[in-house]
């Protein structure tokens, strides 16, 4: 039985060809459909929709501005600012830590040993009183350093050490200070100057005192010398009167001499000549 191989296209293949042509736009079906009546929305409906669109556009919020963080330049500027802020914060923290260490370390060393009575201050120090002695080496009053401690208590492992070793009190401060210890007035703070003025009657400089002592001693010596010269002169005069046998005048002069210098030792020869016995 032979198969019928005649090239007659089946209905399915014809539909497939028609569909392929339709997809390619070569179909009378599309042409017919495009020619068919196409309903359109009424003008009233169009106006209603367009008016709604206009109202919505008027009420619409302003367009969203591009935020500063969405701009590349802002990112760069922000990065620079944050970096600078970080560096500044780190440097500040480091400086505070250094200052705190400077504040604490001398106190630790001082608290462990007693201060000798003849403790001499550093030559460039401005310490003049006990309260000023507690001024830190960095120039800041110790009270300020103590105020800052609570803020750093969380991370400061030296907290207990600091609290357990309070600032040392100077047991024996030198009574007198040299001018080099005091420093120049221009370098002193106003508080220090006031304290110096208040304590002026108690604190004197050594050279001035030494000069006063010298002057007193010199005046005393000078006085003694003058007095001795006067006494010797007086006794010499009495001796001359005795030699001239003017015993009445010599005795009267001796009485005046004894009244003026009762304790002065008189030569026994004079006393022998003038004695009534």
């Amino acid at each position, binding site marked *: 039985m032979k198969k019928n191989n005649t090239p007659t296209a089946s209905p399915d293949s014809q539909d497939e060809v028609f569909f392929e042509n339709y997809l390619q736009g070569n179909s009378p079906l599309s042409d*017919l459909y495009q*020619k068919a*009546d196409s*309903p359109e929305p009424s003008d009233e409906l169009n106006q209603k*929709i367009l008016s709604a669109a206009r109202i919505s556009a008027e009420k619409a919020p302003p367009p969203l501005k591009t935020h500063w963080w969405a701009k590349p330049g802002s990112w760069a500027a922000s990065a620079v600012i944050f970096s600078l802020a970080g560096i500044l914060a780190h440097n500040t923290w480091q400086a505070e830590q250094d200052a705190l260490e400077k504040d604490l370390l001398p106190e630790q060393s001082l608290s462990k040993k007693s201060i000798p009575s003849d403790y001499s201050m550093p030559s460039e120090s401005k310490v003049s009183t006990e309260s000023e002695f507690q001024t830190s080496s960095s120039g800041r009053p110790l009270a300020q350093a103590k105020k800052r401690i609570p803020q750093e208590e969380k991370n400061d492992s030296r907290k207990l050490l600091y609290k357990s070793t309070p600032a040392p009190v100077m047991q024996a401060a030198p009574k007198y200070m040299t001018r080099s210890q005091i420093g120049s007035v221009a370098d002193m703070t106003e508080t220090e100057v006031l304290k110096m003025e208040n304590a002026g009657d108690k604190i004197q400089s050594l050279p001035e005192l030494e000069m006063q002592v010298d002057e007193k001693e010199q005046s005393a010596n000078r006085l003694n010398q003058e007095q001795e010269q006067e006494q010797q002169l007086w006794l010499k005069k009495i001796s001359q009167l005795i030699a001239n046998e003017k015993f009445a005048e010599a005795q009267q002069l001796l009485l005046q001499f004894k009244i003026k210098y009762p304790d002065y030792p008189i030569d026994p020869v004079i006393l022998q000549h003038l004695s009534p016995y």
Partner: protein
Amino acid sequence: MVETVTDEQLIHSYQKGEADAFEALYARYKNAIYHYFFRQVHSDGIADELHQDVWLNIIKSSSGFKRQSSFKTWLYKIAHNRLIDHYRQSSRQPLYLVQPAAQAESLTEETTETGQQIQTSDKPSNEPDEALQEQQISHALLKGISALPEEQKEVFLLHEKSGLTLQEIALISGSSLESTKSRLRYAVKKLRQHMKNLL
């Protein structure tokens, strides 16, 4: 000038508050959208309602349009969803099925008669007017489209009137590309069979 501007640029301008941009967009798609609804529901009133709902939805949610897809796809996706909602509200029954039977029968008879007239066009004295012929053919085609299953009809209308590609139609209807192509193939085959005396 407006034609050179893309749909996405127009909707972006409308997002900025330019009402004219929306008018341009509406002018581009108003007929296609209305046609899409009208051929599905076969009712001026319902088509008006659906058409208005879709465009008001566009106006309302225009700010939410991201350029992840084309405006055309977005617009027809909204229209497709609105049509499905309409079917659900009307007990899942496409409105073309509730078309008056008398009207459908008259259309069928008319088409049959037209086909006979075309076939018997040998007699010049009975030759109908050319315009009337085209009108009758169009009616026959529209009737064939109306008789298509809902899914096939939608694919055919979107492809034919809106000029969407099969990929876009698949995206709008939420179907695979093969399913969409298969639906269109069946729709064309049935229409060809329906119009075999005219094509």
